[in-house]
């Protein structure tokens, strides 16, 4: 099966799990920011969770289907249409050759994920096809380029039966956002007032947000410890530069850095933050290792599970 890119804003990219085992070389992790939605898109087609998918931020993408196939759509509701018929996310759906798939503007969420049978084909570069523009790694050509008009996306000929993800299993992207944070060692070196504010006041997502990190706006946090020597940075790290406004580091972060940190968001919270638009209110909530781990394992299990008992999709 294949799809042709007719129009793009230049933001849609191929992503998978990301690159591992090479971070000591300065190579960033990459991978789908909302790994839960990406994993569920694969799940709906019976793919393995790390199959390459399209990450589509904010819409502005038109694809033409060149062969009959089944695709799956999850994540943000970008008011996608198939030949002008609205498509609901969290379903897989049949498409026919010649049909047009258009991603418009977000109704809720930021990033939609589109999966194809056995994943979109792309070369593996350092063990992954994750697109990292800055590192010139991954994507369709392996050189880090985002999708461009004219690109052809290929996948397997298999046509799985369209199914719908049962409502209770869908991540709710409309609920008020609480991001669970696993506290790090340096948290004790922030002032007491700062810690109280960090976890009791509302933060807003700043316009400076991309695949490297998301800034939050809110109370100014004061770090009282010594300056730090640069060290490895984990996914979701909440670092506080001298201006006191936290930056949450995401998949395309630099591999080492020297700002003090409150701790790190759990992987589940990272996925949720990736769906927060500019100005959206979020709260930080302290979580224990065991609680955060339990929720993480819950999603992994769901994504890896079988889907053959799901209701079929009815179109009217």
């Amino acid at each position: 099966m294949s799809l042709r890119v007719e129009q793009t804003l230049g933001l849609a990219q191929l992503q998978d799990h990301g690159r591992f085992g090479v971070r000591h070389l300065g190579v960033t992790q990459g991978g789908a920011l909302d790994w839960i939605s990406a994993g569920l898109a694969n799940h709906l087609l019976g793919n393995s969770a790390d199959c390459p998918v399209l990450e589509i931020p904010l819409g502005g993408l038109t694809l033409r289907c060149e062969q009959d196939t089944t695709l799956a759509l999850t994540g943000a509701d970008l008011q996608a249409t198939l030949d002008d018929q609205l498509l609901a996310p969290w379903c897989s759906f049949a498409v026919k050759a010649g049909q047009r798939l258009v991603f418009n503007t977000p109704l809720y969420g930021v990033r939609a994920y589109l999966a194809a049978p056995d994943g979109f084909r792309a070369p593996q570069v350092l063990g992954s096809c994750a697109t990292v523009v800055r590192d010139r790694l991954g994507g369709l050509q392996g050189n880090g380029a985002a999708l461009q008009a004219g690109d052809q996306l290929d996948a397997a000929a298999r046509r799985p039966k369209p199914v719908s993800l049962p409502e209770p299993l869908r991540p709710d992207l409309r609920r008020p956002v609480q991001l669970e944070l696993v506290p790090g060692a340096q948290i004790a070196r922030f002032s007491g007032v700062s810690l109280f504010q960090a976890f009791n006041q509302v933060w807003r997502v700043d316009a400076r947000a991309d695949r490297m990190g998301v800034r939050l706006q809110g109370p100014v946090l004061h770090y009282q410890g010594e300056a730090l020597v640069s060290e490895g940075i984990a996914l979701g790290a909440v670092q506080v530069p001298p201006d006191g406004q936290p930056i949450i580091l995401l998949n395309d972060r630099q591999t080492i850095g020297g700002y003090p940190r409150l701790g790190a968001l759990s992987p589940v919270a990272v996925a949720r933050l990736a769906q927060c638009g500019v100005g959206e209110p979020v709260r930080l909530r302290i979580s224990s290792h065991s609680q955060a781990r339990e929720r993480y394992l819950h999603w992994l299990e769901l994504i890896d599970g079988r889907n053959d008992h799901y209701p079929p999709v009815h179109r009217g």
Partner: protein
Amino acid sequence: MNPQVETASLDSLIIRLFERIDEHNMPWLLAAAQRLRDSFGALLVDLVPSYTTLLLHYDVRALDEWQARELIEQALTDLQPLEHLSGQRHELPVWYHPSVGPDLEPLARHSGLNPNELIQRHCSRDYSVFALGFAPGFAYLGLVEPQLMAPRLATPRRRVAAGSVGIAERQTAIYPLESPGGWNLLGRTPVALFDPKYQGYSLLQPGDRVRFVAISHGEFLRLGGDDSPLEERP
């Protein structure tokens, strides 16, 4: 040696061996890295050495934090520094010239040297690879002698050419890819620092040593260097 283990995230721990940057940290950090790789095996996702620490990302599906801490403690019991640094020594040719190293002359003045003396000093010692970061294959090297120390540019350049060699504080580095950058640029190397086709992908690895060797413009071109001057785009 009594390493401190700190929570970094749900699936990562920081192992802190030292407080300050020092070349003598490397044999300890590399020894610890080796032991941790052996003891975690397939449960190790990533291990990122830096100047004083290692960030260990473990498979949290298989281990909880306490099990991971226990494995670290066992692995690092009676840690001894590597006697022979396993790393390689590289001689990297550099064409030092104001057209590709616009900070060569200002930095020489700042250090009270003439440009030739500055070049000679920059080439006069082996630098350790402390860590890789910022970009694939970007190695933080040090330490440069105190006289050559210079703060980062107040406003980073929007575009620094691949192969550019620079100094910031007491460290020196080469930009593997064209990128923005705030280091003081002295010259350019024709050698590719990172290539997915290389064995190990990055020419420089943590624990390696680097010596810069000044070459002429002709030699730079012969080695395949791109001598297009650095243009400042407003």
